[in-house]
């Protein structure tokens, strides 16, 4: 029973990983690629690690998986936000069908 639930979590995680990487290739703009890939891949990898935690229980490998989940949930949005901010400040243009750009309007007030 444990192994079936763990396998279901791992399959859901791998599906989210695959969808995130399809979005990384498919999307037309760098900001859309960041939006599609980073969230999906974070959720997918957290699903895989949660499946490992259910499979092993609270042994050494399971506790390491739990530590890895917490670390990933803390650091992945930070790195994605830093990359998006650096990309916008280095002057990469948006896609020509994008609607609004609030950060460009607020850039003078922020810096």
């Amino acid at each position, binding site marked *: 029973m444990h192994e079936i639930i763990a396998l279901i979590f791992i399959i859901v995680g791998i599906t989210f990983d695959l969808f995130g*990487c399809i979005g990384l290739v498919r999307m037309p703009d760098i900001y859309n690629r960041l939006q599609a890939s980073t969230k999906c891949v974070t959720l997918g990898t957290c699903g895989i690690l949660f499946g490992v935690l259910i499979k092993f229980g609270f042994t050494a490998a399971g506790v390491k998986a739990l530590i*890895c989940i917490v670390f990933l949930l803390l650091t992945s949005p930070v790195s994605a936000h830093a*990359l998006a901010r650096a990309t916008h*400040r*280095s002057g990469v243009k948006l896609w020509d069908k994008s609607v609004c750009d609030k950060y460009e309007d607020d850039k003078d007030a922020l810096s």
Partner: protein
Amino acid sequence: MRFFRWLLGFIFLAGAIIFIFAYLKVDLQAKLMLYLLISFLLSLFRILKGPTPADRAIATDVLGILVIGFCAILAVYTGRDWYMDIAIAWGLQSFIGALALAKFIEGKSFDA
């Protein structure tokens, strides 16, 4: 031309998924690792082709997160728990690398 490119990618993805699911005679966990290898290939395609350097930095960050999941599936598949040590160390190194690349792309020095 645009439709042809879309069709080529769809044929590659659907062919790979159906081939792995239906025609390979291996375990289920080995099939799952092969599905993860497809997403590795897609991320490597974006690293090779990306028009701006920021695209390559983002794809490198995504690749670093994918390696953590791959190490976790290896820990399930082989039953050895030291693969999780590799996963934690790889996550630390990938986070520091992504922050350093972000500072480098932004154009400031590393001290600021």
